[in-house]
């Protein structure tokens, strides 16, 4: 029964991740889009961790850890590109 609350929380988190796409499209400057992309990645990680309990699969948390590492590297690389290093 309590699992349904986790399913609702996953739905709200997924809605937030989808709503952030608007700022990703309409951001006036490039750092705005990078902020939106970083936030979307964080929301997807939170969504995966909640869904791992809802669907009862531990492998989703491992995917979330690797996703966190890859999104961190991607954010650092895009920031380096924006400031003119690469």
């Amino acid at each position, binding site marked *: 029964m309590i699992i349904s609350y986790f399913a609702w*929380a996953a739905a709200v988190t997924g809605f937030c991740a989808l*709503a952030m796409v608007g700022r990703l499209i309409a951001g006036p400057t490039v750092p705005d889009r990078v902020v939106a992309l970083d936030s979307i990645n964080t929301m997807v990680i939170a969504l995966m961790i909640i869904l791992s309990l809802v669907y009862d699969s*531990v492998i989703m*948390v491992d995917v979330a850890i690797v996703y966190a590492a890859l999104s961190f590297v991607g954010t650092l690389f895009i920031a380096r590109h924006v400031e003119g290093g690469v």
Partner: protein
Amino acid sequence: MEKAALILLTIGVLFNFLGTVALYRFPDVYTRLHGTTKCTTFGSIFTSAAVVVYALQMYLRTGEGRFTTLSVHVILAIFALLISNPTGAHAIARAAHRSGVLPKYAVVDRLAEDHRKKGGVSA
């Protein structure tokens, strides 16, 4: 005792939603970064803590080992978030200032003046 996971989950989802609102309502990139990064980091930690608490309760009730595996992996994910998220936000803010984006209502730029005075990196 089941209320603890629900309270943690509610706090986390509320802060995630507030981070989404902050991304839309703030005027420039620095305030958006400020609101969104703090709120989503805090909220994600709290939803993950709710998963940990619920998995530990299920382990105490049923005694199955997969729930301890789940909670340990979620704690590892929390540490990955804690290390990677503020570092990425700092890199974004640094890149935004160096690419010439200023805050909306700014009148002076003390950081650029300081960099110019030292003659170091171009801000």
